[in-house]
């Protein structure tokens, strides 16, 4: 048998809700396959099933079965680069993995050396993993799979948080693993750009189903992904009348010992909605963390003309709000109702009176979910609730890190409407990081691009 066979599979994490339904697929070995679909569509679930991690770690196969070719080994690489190592350095993690495989110690050094060299991280072998960039961590994770000489490599959104340089290095190594060593490679991604010519087949995940796309459909999808990134919208550059609200003076932001951003004199302007773009891994989130004092930086970041470090933390938190990338990080209570009550009590945005709040909840499809536990909501519902809670807080400056990810087009449209309406009554400065650009034209006043460690205003996005 030279394929991974998934036969009529239905899987659920909880009795109430199935994640995959009647999925039948045949994935050929010795080839490269893409799992494509929005977040929460079940790509990651199927991968974990193939890796044998599910249902062991939760959920239940309600019907059907999976079958892997006899004797082939499987290993997985995960989306969160920092959450896949038991040990402190790449060298130690490689040793750990080979010890697990019960490899004789005499064979280990050669294997480890080869894997490190293959992934180009010999120089990092004794570095602490926690001080490495996400891209370096993912290369170390790949090195482990290379050393283990795994036959089937499953990669769950491996490029989600890494820079382009490391992404292309990894893709190159994966291509080599596939073509030269005949490995079976399956990558899950919500973004298909840059995969043309690599993937032999694409499997599309939607509404609990998964199906293999034919060659024409695959090609059209890959082509449109590359084109989508190239659609251009026009915005204005800052004008002389714009008032600075956040100013970075001689600011240097680092991660580990890698310099991410240098800004000698750069301002974000009051009551404007600024889109912040830049390739993944360039440090956009690090900039937000520096502004909110969650990460250290050199130089001065001033708010409304005053060094932000000299403002009392409690007061500063009422001036600059951070809408975190992971919605659950924003929640402090258990139910939707409790979360809303807290923001209603402490919020300063006058737009959200009882009437407008009710309308907003209806608009976002949250009205009937008031008694639900926030952690049991779907990814999209969590995102919408999170955004509403922070809009209600109404800090004069709001930093939004990927606020639209996981939203369908209809939800995105409603969310943008809500922000616009609120802004009319209560103007706020917003800085938005988003890889999703379609549907934002109405919202965006300015565009800042982060490239080569520098921030600059651009006329198009």
């Amino acid at each position, binding site marked *: 048998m030279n394929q991974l066979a998934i036969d009529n599979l239905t899987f659920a994490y909880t009795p109430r809700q199935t994640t995959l339904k009647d999925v039948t697929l045949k994935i050929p070995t010795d080839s490269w396959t893409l799992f494509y679909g929005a977040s929460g569509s079940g790509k990651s679930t199927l991968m974990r099933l193939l890796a044998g991690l599910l249902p062991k770690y939760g959920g239940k196969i309600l019907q059907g079965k999976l079958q892997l070719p006899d004797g082939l080994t499987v290993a997985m690489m995960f989306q969160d680069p920092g959450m896949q190592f038991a040990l402190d350095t790449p060298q130690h993690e490689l040793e750990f993995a080979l010890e697990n495989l019960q490899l004789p110690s005499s064979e280990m050094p050669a294997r480890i050396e080869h894997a490190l060299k293959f992934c180009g991280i010999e120089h990092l072998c004794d570095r602490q993993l926690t001080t490495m960039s996400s891209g370096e961590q993912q290369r170390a994770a790949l090195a482990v799979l290379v050393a283990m000489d795994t036959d089937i490599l499953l990669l769950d959104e491996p490029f989600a948080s890494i820079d382009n340089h490391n992404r292309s290095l990894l893709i190159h190594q994966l291509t080599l693993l596939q073509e030269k060593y005949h490995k079976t490679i399956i990558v899950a991604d919500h973004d298909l750009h840059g995969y043309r010519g690599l993937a032999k087949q694409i499997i599309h995940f939607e509404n609990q189903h998964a199906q293999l796309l034919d060659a024409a459909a695959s090609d059209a999808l890959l082509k449109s992904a590359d084109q989508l990134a190239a659609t251009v919208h026009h915005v204005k550059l800052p004008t002389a009348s714009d008032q600075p609200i956040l100013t970075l003076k001689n600011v240097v932001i680092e991660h580990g010992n890698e310099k991410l951003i240098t800004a000698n004199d750069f301002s974000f302007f009051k009551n404007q909605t600024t889109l912040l773009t830049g390739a993944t891994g360039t440090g956009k989130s690090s900039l937000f963390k520096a502004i909110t004092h969650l990460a250290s930086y050199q130089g001065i970041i001033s708010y409304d003309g005053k060094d932000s470090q000299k403002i009392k933390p409690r007061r500063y938190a009422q001036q600059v709000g951070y809408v975190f990338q992971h919605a659950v990080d924003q929640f402090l209570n258990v139910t939707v109702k409790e979360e809303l009550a807290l923001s209603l009590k402490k919020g300063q945005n006058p737009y959200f009176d009882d009437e407008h709040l009710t309308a907003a909840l209806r608009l976002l499809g949250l009205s009937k979910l008031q008694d639900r536990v926030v*952690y049991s909501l779907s990814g999209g519902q969590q995102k919408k609730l999170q955004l509403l809670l922070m809009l209600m807080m109404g800090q004069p400056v709001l930093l939004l890190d990927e606020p639209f990810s996981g939203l369908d087009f209809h939800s995105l449209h409603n969310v943008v409407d809500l922000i616009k309406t609120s802004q009319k009554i209560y103007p706020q400065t917003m800085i938005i990081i988003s890889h999703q650009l379609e549907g934002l034209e109405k919202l965006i006043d300015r565009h800042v691009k982060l490239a080569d460690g520098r921030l600059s205003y651009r006329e198009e996005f």
Partner: protein
Amino acid sequence: MAKKNNKFHLRDIILLALVGIIFGVIYWAAAFMYNALTIVFTPLKLPMMGNDLTMGLWCMAGPMAGFMLKKPGAPFLGEFLGAAGEALIGDQWGAANLISGAVQGIASELGFTLTGYKHYDWLGAVATTITTTIVTFAWDWFRNGYNKFGFKNVYYFSGRLLSMFFFCGVLVMLIERLLERSHVMKREEFND
């Protein structure tokens, strides 16, 4: 009812160690409390009061682990693995903490044992509060010279009981209620 799985798997062990370490990390943010309380109580001729009043904070990981996993051995492991974790990162109290971690672990385990591992409720919380107070006090009797304090031990014992009740009883129960309401520990919904 299905047979309850009382074995500790890798995931449980990592979780218990993490919980222990989290309590340790937050405790260090409050370490000034020990010093402040000691300074306040020294003029009252009760310098050890800081030790007794903060003791509950040290012992929270045990009952918390018991409430979370509801298995025999969890309170001990929660307390002990946290201490082991601190020892492993080279914390200077490390090796000595290994012993106090074990003592505190046994102490909180005992409360759940005495209630037959059936009371993950107020009764269990009160039981573990009492056993933790008595066992750690007995330990300090030898180790920190409490055998010499005479009648002042009444104050010290009361202070410790109060601290245990607040941190290991009330606070742990409040956290447990939040976890319970969030349904996050229901990993095996299908296995019932």
